[in-house]
């Protein structure tokens, strides 16, 4: 008899976007047509790389480069990284990247006719503390066109990449902004069937995170997959 590590729970499909989303053109040739093979979790899925600030230096302020302030509306984004049981994922590595205030990425492939800002790169990295809190300072990004369909514009968003305690918790997502009229028109945002799951992708204005005379604050909590309740017992006899 042996005790295997507890696996991670599978999400309810309605709370996640599908691989094949007809309204999002780039999925057409990139979604697998064969069913995925479900695997019972082993150490390969429940272990995760050790990500820490010694190896991956933190970069919590995107609003300043070499002491020079980027142009745009400075904001603070903060929240907690939790698992599905509400437990903080201490030490989770949170990477972010985004367009500048004019809606352009510091990226050679972004040819949108909007100005680059020499004082804005648009990437950051922070680690959740013991209670799961993370926080970074940045600029409110701009909306930008993306050619998916006629007159298509992405809603304002910040990309997030997270590493938790198990590789199966790996998450790449986007935080949107409240009240954005483009959300209702966005095929990426709207491809997740459950409206509550979509709304959880929208950061909330938060006066406690807002710093007086400095920057508006937004709260964005992120939930990573939770563990199965009990480790599986396997073996030919109990």
């Amino acid at each position, binding site marked *: 008899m*042996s005790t295997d590590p507890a696996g991670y729970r599978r999400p309810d499909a309605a709370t996640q976007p599908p691989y094949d989303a007809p309204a999002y053109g780039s999925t057409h*040739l*990139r979604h697998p047509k*064969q069913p995925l093979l479900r695997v019972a979790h082993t150490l390969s899925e429940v272990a995760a790389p050790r990500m820490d600030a010694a190896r991956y230096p933190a970069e919590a302020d995107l609003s300043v480069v070499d002491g020079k302030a980027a142009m745009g509306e400075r904001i603070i984004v903060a929240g907690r990284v939790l698992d599905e049981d509400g437990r903080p994922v201490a030490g989770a590595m949170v990477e972010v990247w985004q367009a500048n205030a004019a809606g352009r990425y510091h990226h050679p492939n*972004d040819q949108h006719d909007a100005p680059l800002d020499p004082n804005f790169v648009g990437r950051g990295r922070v680690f959740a503390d013991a209670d799961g809190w993370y926080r970074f300072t940045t600029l409110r990004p701009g909306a930008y066109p993306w050619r998916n369909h006629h007159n298509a514009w992405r809603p304002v968003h910040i990309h997030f990449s997270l590493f938790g305690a198990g590789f199966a918790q790996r998450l790449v997502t986007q935080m949107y902004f409240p009240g954005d009229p483009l959300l209702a028109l966005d095929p*990426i945002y709207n491809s997740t069937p459950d409206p509550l799951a979509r709304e959880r992708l929208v950061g909330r204005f938060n006066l406690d995170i807002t710093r007086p005379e400095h920057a508006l604050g937004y709260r964005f909590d992120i939930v990573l997959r939770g563990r199965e309740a009990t480790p599986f017992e396997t073996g030919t006899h109990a």
Partner: protein
Amino acid sequence: MSSPATASQTAGPFWHLIEFPQWADLTHADGPNAAVSGERITLAGRIADGAGAPVADALVEIWQAGPDGRYDGAFHGFGRAATDRDGGFRFRTLRPGPVPGRGNALQAPHVTIAIFARGLQKPLFTRLYFAGDSRNQADPVLTAVDPARRNTMIATDAGEGLWRLDIRLQGEGETVFLDI
């Protein structure tokens, strides 16, 4: 207080802002594994879409055990690389050892691969196994795969430490992707 896991969203085409080319070399002299000994290998391949066109804007990550078969040992088994305009990716690493599976069975040596890209609303996971390893025949994941498709997860030995595995997102020769 609990809530379902946050919805995944595509990494889009501009994820390179979090690309750090040195992360593709797990054996880098200034990296965390400089003092770890083992068989140096290169893992390389090309990613193609359903039309056979290169996926030139993908984020590829690997996660593997060290030569000792441990995820929590001295070896830091994480890497990240971008595909080039031919859809190619390349990692330098050490060949992993076999790792524990369920029920104390050993799993054949393998590398977990996660792919993120424009048009991928969730990551695609697969595994890379090594051709010619006799432990492949008893591996619980490989043996669960349709024998006709197993080769999509088995890298071929191209000599001089180079192992090649091409990845097809869709269509003929479609890679076996894992729901992990």
